[in-house]
């Protein structure tokens, strides 16, 4: 799954740690999600969407085959 976390963070001038603190997770988690190495659960995806005040599909997109 692709995501726009890095771009959205940059737009707000947030570091990975800033976002991690807002989400209540570790910085490693944010890094793993950003890199596409870990797909977040639905509850965490909703929390991320709420943090950026966007819809989930505006942040996460399915990989094209």
């Amino acid at each position, binding site marked *: 799954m692709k995501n726009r976390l890095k771009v959205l963070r940059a737009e707000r001038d947030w570091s990975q740690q800033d976002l991690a603190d807002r989400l209540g997770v*570790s910085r490693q988690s944010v890094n793993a999600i950003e890199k596409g190495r870990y797909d977040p659960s639905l509850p965490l995806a909703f929390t991320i969407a709420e943090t950026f005040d966007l819809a989930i599909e505006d942040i996460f997109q399915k990989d094209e085959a």
Partner: protein
Amino acid sequence: MLASGGILLVLKSAGAINATTTYILACIPVGLMVAFFIEVRRRQDGPARASSASVRYLKGIFATSMAYMLGLGIAIWTWNNVEVTTGVTWLLAMLPIIPILAMVFVMGRYIVEEDDEYLRQRFMQASLIGLGFVLSIGSFYGFLETFDLVPHVPGWWAVPIWAVGMGVGQGWLNWRDRTLDDGDEA
């Protein structure tokens, strides 16, 4: 840790060292293992965040490891130096067993309590790698033992082998994360 465990096993099997010496030497890799776990967790969480579940896990593993070494030492010394009844022997055997059960409980509790789903998934992956070590080495060695190719090894080696496998798994996952980590960029 693996090497020292292997050397101890060979020395003990060959009769080069007695049970007490084996115990004293075994404390070294166990101590190293505890230090290794602490370092792995410290690097994993970093100074900015160490979840309460992680802290409880580390304290629990440290306490149970110390209880294990103490219980095993008391049991071996008593077994070697004191004439004991069968009932007391059962109690002696329980001294190292109870801390091991407590260690398994601490690990299970961490999985339940860790609210960071990525760290929880990493712990589960490392645990499965440890399980893979136990199943592979246990089956391999077990069949060699069945056909009298190698000496008997007590079943309690399952836990140290699992812990070493888990440590290897954590190390590999940490390396993978560090390799792909672009730091705390803004």
